[in-house]
C-alpha cells in the first residue's frame, strides 16, 4: 500500500481545499492518537516510576514522582521473590516445550501438507475442530494426576507440546514449496528424515519463526496451568512466582513494580527483534477472502 488516506483525500477534493482539509485531518488524527497513547504510556511510566522509589517514600504519597530514583527495589525483589529460580524454570519450560513441539509438528505437518498418507485431510480437520471444542482443563488434570505427573516438571511440560493453530500455519506454509523438490531429493538419495530437517525446515523458516515465537510467548505468559499443576515453589515459573509475590508483599508496590518490569523486559526485547513474525502470525489468513 503506497498511497495513504490523506493523499487520497488530496486527490479527491482537488488541490486548494485539499491541503487545508488534510492538515486538519492530520491534526485531528494526532489528537485522537495522543489521547489513546496516554493510556498506554502513563501506566507504563507509573510502573517504572514506582519501581524506582523507596517503600517509605511511596507510602507517604503513592502517586508522586520518584524524588531520588534508585534501583534498590530490583535487587530486593530479585532475592525476596526468588527470581533467579523462577526465571530459570520459565526458560526451561519455554525452551523444552517449544523445541519438542516444533520438532514433532514438522513431521506431522509435512505429510499432511503433501497428502502423503491416506486420511491426511481428515487429520487436518481434527486439528481445526479442536479450536471449537470445550477446554480440556478438567480431563487433562485427571490424566496428569493419574499418571503421577502432578506437580512435576515433565508433567507440566507435557501440557505445552501441542498447538493446533501453529500446526495449521505450518501446513499452509509447506504447501507453497514445490513437490518436485521432494522427488529430486529422493532421487539424489536423501532420506525422508534428512530431507525434512535439512531442506524443508530451512525453507519454511518464516513460518517456523512465527509459530515458535507465538508458542514460546504463550508458555512464558501462562498463569493458569502453573496455578493448577504446580504446588512446589521450586517448580514455579515466573508468572506464578510473581502472583504469589504480590499476594505476600501485598502493598509493597515498589517491589512488585520492579518484579513486573523484570518479567517484562525479556518479552519486550524478544518483541523488538521478532515483531514482524509475531504480527505476521496473528494476521495470517485473517484478511484473505
Amino acid at each position: 500500500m503506497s498511497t495513504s488516506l490523506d493523499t487520497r483525500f488530496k486527490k479527491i477534493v482537488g488541490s486548494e481545499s485539499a491541503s487545508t482539509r488534510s492538515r486538519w485531518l492530520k491534526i485531528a488524527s494526532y489528537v485522537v492518537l495522543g489521547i489513546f497513547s496516554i493510556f498506554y504510556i502513563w501506566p507504563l511510566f507509573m510502573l517504572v516510576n514506582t519501581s524506582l522509589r523507596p517503600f517509605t517514600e511511596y507510602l507517604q504519597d503513592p502517586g508522586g514522582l520518584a524524588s531520588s530514583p534508585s534501583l534498590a527495589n530490583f535487587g530486593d525483589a530479585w532475592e525476596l521473590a526468588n527470581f533467579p529460580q523462577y526465571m530459570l524454570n520459565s526458560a526451561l519450560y519455554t525452551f523444552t516445550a517449544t523445541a519438542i513441539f516444533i520438532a514433532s509438528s514438522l513431521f506431522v505437518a509435512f505429510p499432511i501438507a503433501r497428502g502423503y498418507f491416506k486420511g491426511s485431510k481428515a487429520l487436518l480437520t481434527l486439528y481445526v475442530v479442536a479450536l471449537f471444542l470445550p477446554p480440556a482443563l478438567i480431563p487433562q488434570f485427571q490424566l496428569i494426576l493419574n499418571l503421577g505427573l502432578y506437580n512435576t516438571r515433565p508433567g507440566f511440560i507435557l501440557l505445552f507440546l501441542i498447538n493446533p493453530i501453529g500446526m495449521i500455519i505450518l501446513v499452509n506454509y509447506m504447501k507453497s514449496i514445490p513437490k518436485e523438490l521432494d522427488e529430486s531429493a529422493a532421487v539424489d538419495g536423501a532420506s525422508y528424515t534428512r530431507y525434512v530437517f535439512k531442506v524443508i525446515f530451512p525453507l519454511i523458516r518464516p513460518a517456523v519463526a512465527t509459530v515458535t515465537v507465538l508458542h514460546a510467548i504463550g508458555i512464558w505468559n501462562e498463569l493458569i496451568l502453573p496455578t493448577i499443576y504446580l504446588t512446589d515453589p521450586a517448580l514455579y515459573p515466573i508468572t506464578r512466582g510473581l502472583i504469589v509475590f504480590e499476594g505476600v508483599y501485598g502493598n509493597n508496590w515498589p517491589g512488585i513494580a520492579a518484579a513486573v518490569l523484570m518479567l517484562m523486559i525479556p518479552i519486550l526485547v524478544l518483541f523488538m527483534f521478532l515483531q514482524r513474525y509475531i504480527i505476521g502470525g496473528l494476521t495470517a489468513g485473517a484478511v484473505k477472502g
Partner: protein
Amino acid sequence: MQRNYLFGSEGRWSRLTPIYLLIPGVLLYLVIALGPSMATAAYSFTDASGLRGADVNWVGFDNYNEFLFEGLASRDNLAATVRTLQFSVLVTFIQFTLGLILALLLNQKLKGRTFFRTLFFIPVILGVVIQGLMWKLFLLPRGGPMASIFGLFGAESEFLGGLPSEAFMWVVIVQIWANVGVTMVIFLAGMQTISDDLYEAARIDGAGGWQLFKSITWPQLTPAINTNFLLNIVGSLQAWQLFLVLVGYKNGTQVLGYLVFAEGFGQGESPAFRQGFAAAASIVLFFLVLVIGFAANKYVSWREERYVG
C-alpha cells in the same frame, strides 16, 4: 506416476516412514488435547474430584441440575452466565470499534505511525500477569494515578475494590486495552490489500471521505471485519484471566470461565475440587460459545454474500 519416485515399488522412500514419524506428534495431540477436550462432556456427568485414585461415579444430570436449578447457588450461576454475555457484548463492540478507528488513523501517512502501532500492540504480548498488575497499580484507590485524575474532577472511586459492577467495568476496560492491538493489526493488514485504483475511481466520481469509507473501505474490508468480529466474540466469551489477576473470585463479578476454574480447582469459596460440576459448567459455556459463534458465523456469511457476492 510422479509419486513412484518417492514411494511404492520403485520409490526411494518407504511409504511407512512418514507415518511412523508423525505418530509422536499426533499421539501427543490426541492424548493431551483432543481426547481430554471431548472427555469434558463425559466428566460432566460424574462426581469426579481432584484426589488421585478417588472413585469417579456416574451421577447423571445432577451437576446440570445443580448448576441450573438448585437454590441460591444456581441463581449466582445464572447471573454469571448473563454476566459472561454482558462482558462479551461490551468487549466485542468497543474493541471492534476502537480497533477500526485506530487502524484507520494509522493507515494514513503520519509521522510516528510505527511508534503508535507498536505502542498499542505491546500489551498483547505481555500476558495477563503483567497487564493485570500494571493496571492494579494504576487503579490503586487512594493516591493512585487514576485516583488523582478522578480527584481533579472531584470524583472518588474504589475502582477494583469497589462495587462489583464497578470492578466489572474496569476489567472490561483493561481487557479491551490489552487486546485492541490484535484487532487493530488485523484491520491494518486488511486495509493493505485494498487496491488504490478503487479509491482513484471513486475520486473521479467525486466521492467524499465518508463515502469512500462506506462504499470502498468497509465492503473491501469484509474478510478482516469477519475475522475480528468472530475472534472478539469467541475470545471474550472465554476470557476470564484478567478477573483473576485484577479482582479475584469476587461475588458479583464472576464469569463462566472463572467459575469453571474456581469450582474445579478449589480456588473459589470452597477448597474442594468439584471437577464434575466444573465440567458441567464448562459444557454450558461451550454451548453458549457454540450457539453465539454459529449465529455470528451465519451473520458473517450473510454479510459476505451481500458485499462480496
